[in-house]
């Protein structure tokens, strides 16, 4: 199915960048979580979630992203989002995600902020 979410990982020093492509539902959220935890296990200190190729994240997907965020915070790591569409940005604000995670317009801004 075309709408299934693909997740690609990239590493810049101790910052891991996960880029999604497609609909983030429970499966998409779980795939992000799996890759995020693998990055943390292998030494990443900060995570950037680049959602620029995703136009819909449902509330189940977001609840999984919140779990990832909590796990990162428990480890004193950092998590930032970038590339949000106005609708996803609005939804993150409705759910209060924006209070707990940084949101940057672009990936390079997110990586720069987390690399400091």
């Amino acid at each position: 199915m075309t709408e299934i979410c693909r997740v690609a990982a990239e590493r810049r020093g101790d910052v891991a960048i996960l880029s999604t492509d497609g609909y983030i539902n429970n499966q998409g959220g779980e795939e992000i979580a799996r890759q995020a935890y693998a990055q943390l296990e292998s030494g990443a200190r900060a995570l950037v979630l680049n959602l620029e190729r995703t136009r819909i994240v449902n509330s189940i997907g977001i609840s999984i992203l919140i779990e990832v965020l909590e796990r990162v915070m428990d480890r004193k790591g950092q998590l930032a989002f970038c590339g949000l569409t106005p609708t996803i940005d609005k939804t993150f604000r409705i759910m209060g995600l924006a209070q707990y995670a940084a949101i940057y317009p672009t990936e390079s801004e997110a990586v720069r902020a987390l690399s400091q």
Partner: protein
Amino acid sequence: MSLNAAGAREISLTIPVAADMEIVATAQAAAVGEFIDMPRDKIDEVKLALVEACINAFEHAHARDDRVHLTFRVGRERDGREFLEVEVLDRGTGFDEALVEAPSPEKTFSGRRKRGWGLQIIRGLMDSVSILSGQGGTRILMRKYK
């Protein structure tokens, strides 16, 4: 465009209760939105609200006919503003909105319960929302102005 004439101009879509069917339904919202030249970001808001309403029907309604019925209507207010109205109907158990515990970021982040945001998202993204629920099922009517 004569879609809004006579009230008879509406598009109905029935989907089975099955994984990912909500995404198939969003295609129709997008097509009707594009039909009235609604901007892409507003179409996205309608799509996500529709997704949440469908997921609720899939997860909670236990509909007797195992289906969710959507209706798309295009209309115009007397002041000229055009809107897209989406109705999401299930023939399920119904629920009492007054008994639904409101979510909050604090509760969500303290870890007790991460879910429970669907109706809030629908209300946050759409311009008007009405929910009618009873023994016959649930009907959510939501509107977005162009």
